[in-house]
């Protein structure tokens, strides 16, 4: 019962986070849009009557509408896009024994978690990694790399899939998939704006020069301040959005590890799987930074995921694997202790 209550609380929390994320995302785009409008309005307010006056805030209207469209798209098609971006193909007719085993293991974990069987995908990449995506349990997909199938034993594979089913059951996948869509959009926006401003800088220079020549006091100072703030937001937004994703993901990994261990009742198998994943130091090339927070281990390791400490805590998308293994081992020892105690004492 308390498990159920805990699960329900987790799901509620993720629903709430998804809502807040969407609101925050739209607000951010509103600031980018209307902030720009405000800056241009202030800057063009005291120009001579014949020249352009920025009165209608069409940048703001446009960006809020596109933010809503991006949210809707991430919600409807985010999972498809994530899978598409990794080049994954859906495993429907298992051809090799390994693929058959994967399908079997996914079915087993679906039964264990009491959820419908998710769709199974394979990412053509030799580095071992896995992730889950989707809106909810009914639309969930689990993807593993070819390298994972080749590296792990049956028990370890089961543990990894159980970890992913934990993400599915807790509704982490909804939050993570939305985040993946939004990170992509923000990166795109920032790049696009950067390029536009880069091209427009000559124009801006002419603008400033014209004003300097005319009034001597330059443009409206408030307008300049807002413009600077606005540019700053665009520069830091991709970083901030990624940091947010990392922060969210880090907390969810421990929980999914625990859920996975609870489903298979073999925490040691997940610990040894993580050890093997840690050992494979090569980067998972087919998984881009925008989807890193979805994976069971950081797809581009070496930078932070193997380190501990304050800075690593702040920027890594995953908790240090060492710490995760230690926690799982702890669970395993406790379980073993309980079992031997149970075997020794009369029933």
């Amino acid at each position, binding site marked *: 019962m308390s498990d159920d209550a805990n699960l329900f609380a987790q799901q509620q929390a993720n629903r709430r986070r998804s809502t807040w994320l969407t609101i925050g995302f739209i607000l951010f785009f509103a600031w980018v849009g209307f902030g720009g409008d405000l800056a241009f309005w202030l800057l063009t307010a005291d120009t001579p009557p014949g020249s352009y006056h920025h009165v209608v805030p069409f940048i703001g209207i446009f960006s809020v509408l596109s933010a809503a469209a991006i949210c809707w798209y991430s919600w409807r098609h985010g999972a498809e896009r994530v899978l598409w971006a990794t080049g994954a193909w859906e495993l429907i007719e298992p051809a090799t024994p390994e693929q058959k085993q994967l399908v079997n*293991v996914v079915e087993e974990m679906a039964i*264990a978690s009491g959820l419908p069987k998710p769709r199974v995908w394979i990412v053509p990449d030799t580095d071992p990694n896995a992730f889950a995506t989707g809106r909810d349990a009914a639309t969930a997909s689990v993807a593993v790399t070819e390298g994972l199938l080749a590296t792990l034993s049956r028990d370890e594979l*089961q543990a990894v899939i159980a970890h992913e089913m934990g993400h599915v059951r807790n509704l982490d996948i909804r939050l993570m998939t939305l985040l993946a869509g939004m990170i992509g959009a923000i990166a795109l926006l920032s790049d696009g704006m950067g390029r536009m401003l880069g091209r427009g800088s000559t124009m801006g220079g002419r603008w400033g020069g014209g004003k300097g020549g005319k009034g001597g006091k330059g443009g409206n100072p408030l307008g300049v301040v807002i413009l600077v703030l606005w540019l700053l937001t665009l520069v830091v937004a991709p970083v901030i959005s990624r940091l947010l994703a990392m922060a969210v993901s880090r907390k969810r990994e421990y929980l999914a590890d625990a859920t996975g261990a609870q489903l298979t009742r073999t925490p040691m198998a997940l610990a040894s799987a993580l050890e093997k994943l840690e050992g494979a130091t090569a980067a998972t090339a087919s998984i881009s930074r925008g989807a890193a927070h979805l994976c069971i281990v950081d797809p581009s390791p070496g930078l932070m995921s193997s380190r501990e400490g304050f800075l690593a805590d702040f920027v890594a998308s995953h908790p240090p694997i060492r710490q995760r293994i230690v926690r799982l081992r702890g669970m395993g020892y406790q379980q073993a202790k309980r079992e031997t105690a149970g075997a020794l004492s009369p029933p």
Partner: protein
Amino acid sequence: MGTIVLLALIAGIVLWMVGAYNGLISLKNQVVNGWKQIDVQLKRRHDLIPNLVNTVKGAMDFERSTLDAVISARNRAIGATGVQQTAKAEGELTQALGRLFALTEAYPDLKATNNVAQLQEELTSTENKIGFARQLYNDVATQYNTRQMQFPTNLVAGLAKASPAELWEIEDASERAVPMVDLSANKRGA
């Protein structure tokens, strides 16, 4: 005023009864459904065993007794009815299969043929599924049993025709240790 309070009270009680009744029925259906999940996997296991026996028969001719034990355990498992009897028969089948798989380890040629490896994977998966389905079944059955015995709900338990569901009990430790223990016993016997 008094009648309004009385009516409200009655309405409250009726509402609660409806809720409690529906809660019990829904749990009951979950128990039935949980059992069906187990049943599907058991059927699959029973269907796989003749294939396995036929495949290994030629190569393991002198292990006749082990094969016979698997076959007879399977037949008993198919005939079993009720949770207790099924649990017992399936437990024996698991042991017999464990022995068979332990023996196949001694035949590298047999292990090398793809067919046996495949069958073994299928049977392992089916056994895991049975295990996980059993966990789920026991969880909902326990919930159902507790609910119908707890105080206010037990008043409507008769109305919902609720009776305690049987749990699928296993001796966890012994089941886990079976293949190894039995192998050594077998060698001593031979």
